[in-house]
């Protein structure tokens, strides 16, 4: 399953022993993996009751919080790595959250569906919004209220004074480093504050 491999690729970006904040940790797979296999510590943040309980069951520390309310609970640079995987596109205040991610973490890792992936472009060129594995919703019920592209994020990061340490795309769980804006369904950025 590609989502599983996506997580493996992203886990490789997190240095062993890091203090990690996982924003929108879902069922806690990644953080549990980082804690158990890479000696990391930290917290998951999750809003959903079912996911919260699943994360608790995995033995990680998880805090129920709505990311739309910001990260006031966390101090500046209080984590080595802040993960924001597949959540940024759901947030009304996506830019503010990106700033918060950069404030709280010494490095941030963000992933989101790349709207410029060629099948999406093809779909729009045919006059219809794309419905794909990375963007599996119809336009009228999508939780992805901030759809953007790999290239868009580079602009947003620059605008917010972030230096990109690494970036690539993902397709079927494999990194895409050549022409990711068209060839990758998911965009991944690792960055720090300048």
């Amino acid at each position, binding site marked *: 399953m590609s989502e599983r491999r996506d997580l493996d690729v992203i886990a490789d970006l997190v240095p062993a022993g890091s203090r990690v904040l996982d924003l929108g940790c879902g069922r806690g797979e990644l953080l549990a993996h980082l804690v158990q296999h890479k000696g990391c510590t930290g917290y998951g943040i999750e809003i959903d009751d079912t996911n919260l309980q699943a994360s*608790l069951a995995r033995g990680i520390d998880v805090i129920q919080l709505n990311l739309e309310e910001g990260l006031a609970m966390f101090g500046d640079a*209080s984590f080595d790595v802040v993960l924001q995987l597949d959540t940024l596109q759901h947030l009304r205040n996506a830019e503010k959250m990106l700033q918060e991610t950069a404030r709280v973490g010494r490095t941030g890792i963000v992933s989101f569906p790349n709207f410029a992936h060629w099948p999406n472009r093809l779909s729009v060129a045919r006059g219809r919004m794309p419905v794909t594995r990375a963007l599996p919703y119809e336009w009228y019920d999508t939780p992805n209220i901030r759809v953007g592209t790999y290239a868009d994020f580079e602009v947003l990061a620059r605008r917010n004074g972030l230096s990109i340490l690494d970036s690539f795309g993902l397709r079927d769980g494999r990194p895409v480093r050549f022409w990711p804006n068209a060839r990758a369904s998911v965009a991944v950025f690792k960055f720090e504050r300048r």
Partner: protein
Amino acid sequence: MPLKRARRTGDRTSAAAPVFRFMGSVGQVTSQSMHFSDPLPLSSGARLLDYRLAYETYGRLNDARSNAVLVCHALNASHHVAGVDAQGREGWWDNLVGPGKPLDTDRFFVIGVNNPGSCFGSTGPMDPNPDPAAAGRPYGADFPVVTVEDWVDAQARLIERLGISRLAAVLGGSLGGMQALSWTLRYPDRVRHCIGVATAPNLSAENIAFNEIARRAIITDPDFHGGHYHAHGVVPRRGLRIARMIGHVTYLSDDVMASKFGRRLRGGDDKGYSFGYDVDFEIESYLRYQGDKFSDYFDANTYLLITRALDYFDPAASHGGDLARTFAAAQARYLLVSFTTDWRFSPARSRELVKALVTNRQHVSYAEIDAPHGHDAFLLDDPRYHGVLRTYFDRIAAESPAP
């Protein structure tokens, strides 16, 4: 106490994956009593002499003595946490504690202790004052003011006498949660997990205000007699009733009162208003009933004592109000739970605790349950709330405790 022990029905599905476990009662339970001849030093500087603590236990202490869970009670509860007592009364947290329940007595040895100053079996204001000058009369108003810390010290002595050097967990809701927090500060190496539900690092001014109104209702009752009402053969029942009515309102949410009572009239809406001051509305009838019931079984001096203990709890006060510094030396892992409609112990207060623990890089998990029942929610069995507690206790049970 809860309005009714009903399972919440709503549009949200249970957070728990379906787990089919037999959930039973611990059955008939017997209250036990432990006597202490060593005086208990109190925060006030006074000492509690020659006292006893009433307690109950459920389940079996394992050979390693590592599966003990202490349940701390709140304002009007007692050591009778689960099962059915000699009078046929069900424990106040029976929906949580029992075989197969979230706090599973097949796996844990659960202890409920009645705090000193209470009126349910531990030494309290209704007991004879050992001071020779009192000549065997009840303590009444002379019972020393006790604090959360004093209670925790008393509980710690009892736990020690039971041969338990380290608790698997301390659990409490509301004022009970304050005791659970205090355990991790006073006895950091004697508790592995702290589970605080609908609790706070201290009371807000609004909360103290409600307590003060309740206390004034009792103290200004002509039957109070400066706290020595027993000597006059009376009980300040009017004051107690009003205190309870006020308390009750604050434990509920506006929504739950609207849905349970609304503006409905007693005896049917076609009955019309009485154009007098007796009971017209269902809510009035309900509050009066709760007040009457409470004044039959609760001691007025105990009510004063316990509300004062609530007011005084403020562990950060000795650390310049810095909650992170207050908890810096704690070693426990924490689970905190709050309820969105609880305005007496609001989620914001639990978040203060989470923030302090996060600042210290301590282990903490936090659930904010979207429940409509106000502060009372901690006594109800919302499936998401109980699911979180069950999952967390499963985690504790799965740990191999450090020797």
